[in-house]
């Protein structure tokens, strides 16, 4: 889970309060956010909506890579919706189907916007997004057909009475300009064309508020069927994608490598990479290498803030130029620290998570996009923002990493204290003896108790004494 916010004043106290309050609202463990996983990025995050002057010192970003999303987080998220999960589109969001998926992500975005066109007053806009990836191919007997009932085991019956707009968009973009490849039932009332992320796409629109939708049947079950059996056509790769992995062997050192792919055929563009590495993986920035197409690629902006043990993580932000049709490999070496035995999580050999790195870029689009009207299609302008018609903004998150650290033996604290203090005491004892005692010629001893006892027994036996 990650959280970022731009404050206006007294940041650190407000950050703690904010993360605790949000943790309570969303039943997420956001209260574990503290200075060891919070950073202040300088370039990667810009506030959305209206903002006066951005001092990046007032921005905080934190990631908790070990936290996963579960039903407990979905319920309060649904409660924020005006109709809850009782009416409208949210009736589909039942936990047992939503978490039966390959990928699940939910987010809450808040930003200040103008209340009307004259912008005399500012309102807060709350935007909630839920992203779920269902793999119907593997569960649907090898066919890519899907329907709302198959995915969510229920159908839409009405719109939320409090909603001013309630729409379902289904992407029916034809591939390779062939029509009639797929069929959507019930037939859509209208079709919307938009250019989204540099691609021309066609959407079938179902407006839940229009009275004609529920005329024929009481419920709406959108179904999509593929007319021809699918050949293994590849999905188009996005223009910008990345992956990250840890290499190296043993528990002493390692290397983090990030691969960034630019598949645009002829345009190069810059990307900002933000890496947050916990303090117990000690990064060595002099080993940072960026290689593109076999040659070194120097970043035009680097901001590096080294970690302080047990206080703050590493922050590395770079602006890297990606040439067209290339792969860029960024590697940095690290050393693994030995922690105190109380600092290990309950399953220490599971490893420690390193949070995803964030790539932010303005990707140039192949097709020119025209500015879309905010009023008409609020969905697209907020989901796929574009500043001008030629590029769109993308923020990518790479995979989190799992790294093992060397562990001490957790059963040994008492033994270690005893043994080490014994060694120190050996030194102290030897030196004490040598410093406080002097050499003397040995006097013959008159015999200890044992000798006297032995002499008494000998006298009884009639044998000469010792």
């Amino acid at each position: 889970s990650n959280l970022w916010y731009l404050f206006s004043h007294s940041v650190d106290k407000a950050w703690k309060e904010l993360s605790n309050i949000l943790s309570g609202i969303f039943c997420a463990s956001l209260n574990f956010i503290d200075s060891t996983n919070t950073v202040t990025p300088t370039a990667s995050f810009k506030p959305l909506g209206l903002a006066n002057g951005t001092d990046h010192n007032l921005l905080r970003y934190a990631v908790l890579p070990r936290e996963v999303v579960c039903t407990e987080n979905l319920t309060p998220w649904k409660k924020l919706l005006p109709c809850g999960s009782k009416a409208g589109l949210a009736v589909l969001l039942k936990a047992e189907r939503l978490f039966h998926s390959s990928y699940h992500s939910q987010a809450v975005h808040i930003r200040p916007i103008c209340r009307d066109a004259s912008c005399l007053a500012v309102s807060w806009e709350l935007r909630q997004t839920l992203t779920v990836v269902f793999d119907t191919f593997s569960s649907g007997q090898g066919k890519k057909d899907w329907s709302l009932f198959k995915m969510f085991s229920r159908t839409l019956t009405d719109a939320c009475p409090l909603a001013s707009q309630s729409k379902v968009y289904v992407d029916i973009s034809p591939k390779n300009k062939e029509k009639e490849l797929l069929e959507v039932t019930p037939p859509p009332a209208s079709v919307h064309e938009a250019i989204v992320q540099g691609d021309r796409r066609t959407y079938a629109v179902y407006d839940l508020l229009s009275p004609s939708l529920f005329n024929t049947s009481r419920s709406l079950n959108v179904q999509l069927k593929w007319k021809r059996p699918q050949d293994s056509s590849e999905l188009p790769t996005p223009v910008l994608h990345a992956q990250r992995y840890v290499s190296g062997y043993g528990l002493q050192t390692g290397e983090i490598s990030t691969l960034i792919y630019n598949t645009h055929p002829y345009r190069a563009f810059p990307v900002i990479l933000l890496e947050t590495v916990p303090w117990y993986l000690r990064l060595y920035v002099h080993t940072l290498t960026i290689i593109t197409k076999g040659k070194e690629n120097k970043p035009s902006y680097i901001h590096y803030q080294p970690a302080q043990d047990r206080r703050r993580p590493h922050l590395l932000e770079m602006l890297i130029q990606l040439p067209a049709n290339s792969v860029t490999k960024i590697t940095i070496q690290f050393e693994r620290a030995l922690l105190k035995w109380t600092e290990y999580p309950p399953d220490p050999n599971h490893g420690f998570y390193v949070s995803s790195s964030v790539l932010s870029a303005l990707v140039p689009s192949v097709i020119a996009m025209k500015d879309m009207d905010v009023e008409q299609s609020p969905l697209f302008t907020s989901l796929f923002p574009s500043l001008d018609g030629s590029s769109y903004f993308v923020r990518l998150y790479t995979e989190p990493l799992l790294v093992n650290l060397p562990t001490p033996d957790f059963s040994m604290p008492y033994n270690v204290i005893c043994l080490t203090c014994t060694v120190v005491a050996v030194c102290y004892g030897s030196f004490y003896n040598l410093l406080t005692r002097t050499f003397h010629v040995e006097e013959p001893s008159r015999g200890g108790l044992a000798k006297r006892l032995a002499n008494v027994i000998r006298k009884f036996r009639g044998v000469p004494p010792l």
Partner: protein
Amino acid sequence: MAAPLVLVVLVAVTVRAVLYRSTLAAFISERVEVASPLNAWKRVVEGLALLDLGVSPYSGAIFHETPLIIYLFHFLIEYAELVFMFKKQKLLIELDKYAPDVAELIRTPMEMHYIPLKVALFYLLNPYTVMSCVAKSTCAINNTVIAFFILATIKGSAFLSAVFLALATYQSLYPLTLFAPALLYLLQRQFIPIKLKSKSFWLYTMQYAALYLCSLVVIICLSFFLLNSWDFIPSVYGFILSVPDLTPNIGLFWYFFAEMFEHFSLFFVCVFQINVFFYTIPLAIKLKEHPVFFMFVQIAIISIFKSYPTVGDIALYMAFLPVWNHLYRFLRNIFILSCVLIVCSLLFPVLWHLWIYAGSANSNFYYAITLTFNIGQILLISDYFYAFLRREYYLTHGLHLTRQDGTEAMLVLK
């Protein structure tokens, strides 16, 4: 005397040059026994890289060297290998001045003549020193400064001795304890008796202390002007004293504090640090007539009990052992102790590999070898101390002791 010395130096330089160029150099510089968080070369390079990026090297937890090292290596980073090779050639020329009165135990001028050569041999060809040099650990710079300090003290120059001692203390905090033996030696040289009421004693002590403190203050102020901040003080001295980094090394601190209950952490840090410093006064009282041996024991105690020891520190006091090879006949456990030290040195990399790379051992194995190695060192030093005291007894009471009834006597420590 010069020819064998030159030969030894040439051999040592050749060995180091060969190792620099081989693949072993990378392997050795990664060894935790040779490079600690305080003196690893990788961290010096990292600190300089941070300086190039415009970030203070002390803002992170990687760089713990003093600013003078930054000054030194900023320009010499290309020639780092040469710097380390020639720092290691520091020769320790000790002039012993014993004139005892028992014939058998007197050291002949012949023996004494060869001592500097033996010391140089012990130091330059010691595998510990070679590894420390190939790893480019800044321990070499530490050792050089301490060696210069000893040279200046033996030669009798109070000013140079104070300056080098200040440099050594500035670099790593512990040589502060060498103030006492140096003072005792210089007093002895000036024939000033050590009586607490004597005015000349206090006068000389004050002079020496003033020289030392002034040099220290000057050096610290110079360091301030490098980066215009006092950040280096918590980063260097705070780090040495509070031991936050628990990277395994050959010392006793790391595992102890890795397994310490949080509540007692501060208490035990204080106990361990006091342990290094508090042998000074008792040793000064017992060994006030023998400041050179006092210096040796003090350096050994620092090397064993400092917070981040490495084999380079051990090599420094081991280099002095030939100076006292006349004590050989009184050493009790030298054979077993040498075996312990050699076997432990060989086992260190094995058990490290088993823990970190093979995963078949755990940290206890490496910790056990650490314990054994430190016990070996402690017993070695106390054995030499015992032998020294015993020889002193024989010097004053004669070599053949008889009891009251004429039979051969035994000597015991009571």
